C-alpha cells in the first residue's frame, strides 16, 4: 500500500465532465444565439448609439457637425411645442391602448370561450389578414371611408346624423392607431384568455360566482399578464406611429413622430430630431418597465 491512491484523479473526473458539459452548452448557445445577437447589434444597438451621439452634435449652415453640446437637449426639453406634443402623443397612445383593450375584450372572450375550435382558428386567421396589406394602404382606405364624400358620411348625412368630422382631428388619429393595433390586441387577448385554466372558471361558477363576476374575479386576474402585454403593445405601436397622425390626424397638433420629421425637413436638424427620438425611446422603456412590474409583480394584496 505504498503507491499513492489514484483518488485525486477519480474525484476530479465528474468536475471535468461537468465543466466540459458547460462548455458544450455555452458553445451551443453561442452558435444559435449569435445570428440574432449580431443582427440586433448591427441594426439596433449601433444605430442607437449613433442616435444618442448625434443628440450632442450641432448644425451649422444646414450641415451636421460632430460636437459635444447640450444645446439640442436644452432647446427641445424647454420648448413648449415639444412638451405639448409629448403630452398629446402620450395621451392619445394611452387612450388607444385603453380603447383597444376594452374593445378587444368582448371579441377575445367570445373567441376564447364561446366558439368552436374550428371557428376560433378561422377567426384568428382573419385577424392576421389585415397584416397582409401594408399599414399605410389601410390608413389611406380609412381616409377614404371618413372623407366628406366617403361611405360613412354618404350613409349618415341623409339620416341627419352627419357629416361626421373625423379626418384631421385627434379622433382621426386614434381611429388610425386602432386600425394599427386592434387586430393585434384581439389576438393577444384571445391567447391570454385561452390560457386561463377552464377549471378555475368552473370553480368560480361552482362557488356561486355568476358569469360577469367571474370575468372580474377570475378571468382577468388569471389572464393579467397577457392582457397587460396586449395593452402595452398597443401603446408602444401607437406612440411611435407616424402614418395615422399624418394622414388621419392632419398633423395638427403634431405628435412626437411628426415632430421628428419636421425637425429633419425644416432645417435638416438631425440632432434635435435625435433628441426627440431619444426621449421617445426612454419613455417607451419606462412604460415597459412599469407594465412588466404591473404584470409580473408579486401581488401583495392578493385581490
Amino acid at each position, binding site marked *: 500500500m505504498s503507491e499513492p491512491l489514484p483518488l485525486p484523479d477519480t474525484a476530479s473526473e465528474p468536475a471535468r465532465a461537468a465543466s466540459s458539459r458547460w462548455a458544450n452548452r455555452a458553445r451551443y448557445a453561442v452558435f444559435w444565439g449569435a445570428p440574432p445577437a449580431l443582427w440586433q447589434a448591427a441594426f439596433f444597438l449601433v444605430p442607437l448609439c449613433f442616435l444618442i451621439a448625434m443628440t450632442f452634435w450641432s448644425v451649422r449652415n444646414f450641415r451636421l457637425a460632430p460636437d459635444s453640446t447640450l444645446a439640442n437637449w436644452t432647446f427641445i426639453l424647454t420648448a413648449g411645442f415639444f412638451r405639448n406634443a409629448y403630452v398629446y402623443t402620450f395621451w392619445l397612445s394611452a387612450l388607444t391602448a385603453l380603447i383597444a383593450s376594452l374593445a378587444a375584450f368582448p371579441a377575445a372572450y367570445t373567441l376564447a370561450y364561446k366558439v368552436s375550435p374550428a371557428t376560433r382558428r378561422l377567426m384568428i386567421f382573419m385577424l392576421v389578414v389585415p397584416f397582409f396589406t401594408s399599414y399605410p394602404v389601410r390608413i389611406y382606405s380609412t381616409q377614404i371611408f371618413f372623407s366628406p364624400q366617403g361611405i360613412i358620411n354618404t350613409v349618415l348625412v341623409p339620416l341627419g346624423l352627419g357629416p361626421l368630422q373625423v379626418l384631421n382631428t385627434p379622433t382621426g388619429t386614434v381611429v388610425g392607431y386602432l386600425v394599427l393595433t386592434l387586430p393585434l390586441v384581439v389576438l393577444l387577448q384571445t391567447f391570454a384568455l385561452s390560457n386561463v385554466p377552464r*377549471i378555475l372558471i368552473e370553480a368560480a*361558477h361552482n*362557488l*356561486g*360566482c*355568476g358569469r360577469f363576476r367571474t370575468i372580474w*374575479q377570475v378571468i382577468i*386576474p388569471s389572464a393579467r399578464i397577457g392582457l397587460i402585454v396586449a395593452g402595452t403593445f398597443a401603446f408602444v405601436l401607437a406612440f411611435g406611429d407616424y402614418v395615422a397622425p399624418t394622414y388621419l390626424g392632419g398633423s395638427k397638433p403634431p405628435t412626437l413622430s411628426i415632430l421628428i420629421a419636421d425637425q429633419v425637413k425644416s432645417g435638416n436638424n438631425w440632432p434635435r430630431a435625435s433628441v426627440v427620438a431619444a426621449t421617445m425611446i426612454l419613455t417607451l422603456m419606462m412604460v415597459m418597465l412599469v407594465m412588466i412590474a404591473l404584470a409580473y409583480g408579486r401581488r401583495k394584496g*392578493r385581490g
Partner: protein
Amino acid sequence: MAIPMIELDRVAKHYGDQAAVADVSFDIEKGEFIALMGPSGCGKTTTLRMIAGLDQPTSGEIRLWGRRLNEDAPWERDAPLVWQSYALFPFLSVRKNVEFGLKQRGLPAAERRRKADEWMERLGIAGFAERGVDQLSGGQRQRVALARALALEPEMLLLDEPLSALDPHLRVRMQSELVRLHRELGITFICVTHSHSEAFAMADRVVIMNEGRVQQVGAPRDIYRRAANRFVAEFVGGNNLFAGTASSAGTRLRVDGPFGTALAPRPAEFTFQDGDAVTLVVAADRIELAPAPMGADNEVEGRVVTLDFVGSSVTVFLETAGGAELRIQQSLSQIENTPLSPGQTITARWSQDVGFFLSS
C-alpha cells in the same frame, strides 16, 4: 314516502353520438355519504358534474327536494365541489380562496373573515392563511379546497377523486378525516372514486357504474356479499366466479365445472334448467383451508400457486386439477397452523349457503 333529497331520474348525457352517461337513476337521502364508483370512463364524474350543474343532462331529470334542477345555473346551486386537482385560485391567498364563495353570497367582510378563520382552523390550515396557494403541499391544498367548499355551509358536498392525488399515508389520514367531517357536519357527501377500498371504507352506500349505467346501488357490505352482476362481482374484487353447468339437487342447485362440484342455494329471482351454464360466486374470505378433504360437499383440492401477503391478511391462489383458479383470503392468524408453500396441494372448503348465482 318522504321525498329523497336528490333524485336522478333516467339521466343521460351525450356528446355527439357518444353517451358519457347512458341512463342513470338513483336517489340520495339527506346526510348520506354516497360513493360513485366505477372504472375510468364509466360516467361517474359526468354524473357528479351534472349534479353541480357544470354539465347539462341531455335527457332525464335531476331533482333536489322534489324540484327540477336541470335548468339551474351552477352558481345558483348549493353544491360546492372539491376538485381532484383542487382548482384553487393561484392569484389569491389561502384566506381569499376560502372567502371566495362567501364573497359571492354578499357576506360582509368581517363575517367572511370570521367564517374563513373558523374553517381554516377546523381544517388545520390557519397557519397558512396569508400564503399563496402555490406555496402549499398537495395535502394542504386539499384542505384549502375543502375549507373553501365547506365555508359555504352547504347541504351537500361534492368530491371528485379527493384522495387520488395524495400520497398513500396521507390518503389514509384524509379518508378518515372525510368520514369524521361527514359525521360531524351531518350533510350529504357525494364522492367520485375509482377505488373500491376508498368507496367501501367511507360511504354509507355505493353506486357502482359502468359504461354510463348504474350496475348496483347498495351498502358496501351488501355489494360485497351479493354482487348484482358479473361486472360488480369482478370489479369489487375478492370474489371467485365459478363457471359450470347447473343441475337440480333438491332445494339446492348443483354446479359442475373445472373447479369441481359445488352446491348452492337455488336463486329466488330466476330459475335455471338442468344443463344451463351458470356462474357461481363465492367470496374469497368465505373459503376455508384444510390440509386434506373431509369428504363433505363444496370441497375442492388444488395446488398452491402463489401467496400474496397484504398487511395481516393473505390471499392464497389455488389451481385445481381441472384448471380453475381459486382465491382464498384468510387472516394471517387463521393460517398460522396450516403450513403453506407454493406447489403444495391443499383443500379449499366453503359452506353451501355462501355461494350465489349471477343472473346471466
